[in-house]
């Protein structure tokens, strides 16, 4: 169970998150939608401690922390339970695909190297990249890089994975293969919070859709409800604009 309570965050006096609260059940796939600047990414970054929130409480399992004053020790401890998939993949450029996946296990988790490599191989195979294990990130396509990024997250066996617009930087052609892998992750039963503009993905995979705008959660609910009967005018407006643009890929 993840509880996010009253998270606030400003950058240079611009309020990005006004007061966001969100509960996510174990194994739930939550998709966060919303226009640019609505605070979706900032929310993910605050709860993964990449940004320091101005206030807010975050609970993961039985650990509960104040996001504004959290110790380095607590950050390390909580990060052991989470993983992050970035918009720009952020693979380690000096490491091969296999090393990228194994790095967290070896360096952070102190796992035996041989065992870590074996696990990393399995994870790469699972995302369909067995033949690329010795390739460096520059030698991989965007879609392949993002799949390595997903393998790197999954191999840690986290309680929750945050996806920050995982397909937004990809060629339209490569979006499909990446979404397929993300769907596979969803089927594993790992809790997921996904920021995306992929409406069809949200409809297919999400257990819950959260619509954010202006630093607030405007509306949340089951995807079939949000997409067909949104309560709020702002949600309706957003969805009508997006869905009319392109039903499959909106980037």
């Amino acid at each position, binding site marked *: 169970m993840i509880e996010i309570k009253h998270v606030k965050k400003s950058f240079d006096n611009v309020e990005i998150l006004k007061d966001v609260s969100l509960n996510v059940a174990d194994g739930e796939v939550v998709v966060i939608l919303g226009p640019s600047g609505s605070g979706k990414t900032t929310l993910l970054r605050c709860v*993964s*401690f*990449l940004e320091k929130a101005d206030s807010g409480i975050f609970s993961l399992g039985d650990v509960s922390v104040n996001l504004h004053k959290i110790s380095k020790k607590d950050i*390390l401890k909580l*990060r*052991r339970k*989470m*993983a*992050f998939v*970035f918009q*720009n993949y*952020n*693979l*380690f*450029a*000096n*490491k*091969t695909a296999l090393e990228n996946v194994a*790095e*967290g296990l070896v*360096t*952070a*988790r102190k796992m035996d190297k041989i065992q870590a490599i074996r696990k990393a191989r399995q994870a790469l195979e699972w995302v369909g990249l067995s033949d690329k294990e010795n390739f*460096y*990130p*520059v*030698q991989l396509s965007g879609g392949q890089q993002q799949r390595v*990024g997903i393998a*790197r*997250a999954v191999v*840690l066996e986290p309680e929750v994975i945050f996806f920050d617009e995982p397909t937004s930087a990809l060629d339209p052609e490569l979006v499909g293969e990446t979404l397929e892998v993300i769907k596979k992750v969803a089927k594993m039963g790992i809790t997921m919070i996904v920021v995306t503009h992929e409406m069809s993905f949200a409809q297919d995979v999400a257990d819950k859709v959260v619509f954010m705008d202006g630093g607030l959660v405007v509306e949340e609910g089951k995807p079939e409800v949000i997409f067909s009967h949104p309560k709020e005018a702002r949600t309706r407006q957003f969805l009508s604009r997006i869905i009319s643009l392109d039903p499959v890929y909106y980037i």
Partner: protein
Amino acid sequence: MGLDYEFMWKAFPDILSYLPVTLKLTAGALILSVPFALLFAMIQIRKVPLLRKIVSIYLSLIRGTPIILQIFVIYNLMPYLLQKYADARGMNLNIYDLNGMWYAYIALSLSATAFLTEAFRASIETVDKGQFEAACMVGMSRGQAYRRIIFPQAAGVAMPVITNVVVDTIKATSLAFAMAVTEVTGRAKILGGENLRYFEAYLDIFLVYVIVIGITEILLKKLEKYCVRYRVA
């Protein structure tokens, strides 16, 4: 006036026997510089208040003065201050017995540290911050992220500048003669003076420097290739 080839030939091995001093000065100065340069670079990157100011004043001072002047200051001022300190503490120590090599290491490392600081800072900042965040999100500590991900990539970027600093340091060791340390250039001056064959002696060391620096550049180029091996294709 003809060249005295015989003198050139005879003096060469003599001068070459002082090459270890030159190399030792270079290595010593660089070994002393690297940890400080890394520390200073991190102080600037992390924007540590106060220390950051001190580092930038240090950089301006070193960049703004010739090495020979830095050498004179170190060589004349430091023993005086150290002796005063030792006397005040009642230590029975004669600082002037200290080998001139030590002043040379320190004097030469001053400018190497300054230029390496700049090289390290700039190269670390070229590595995308996203990779640091990714390292944190796979559970690495800040230190692990720097050691495993950031520094290895920064090293590749910094290598050309590091090569320059190494070469500059080799050349700057020729100033150590001003601190009564006899290395290659110093020995050539002595031999040239004794035989009144300066020009021949200088031609000898000309050759020594060209060869030593040539080899250094080849080796460092290899190291650079190794550092950027991940930038394939």
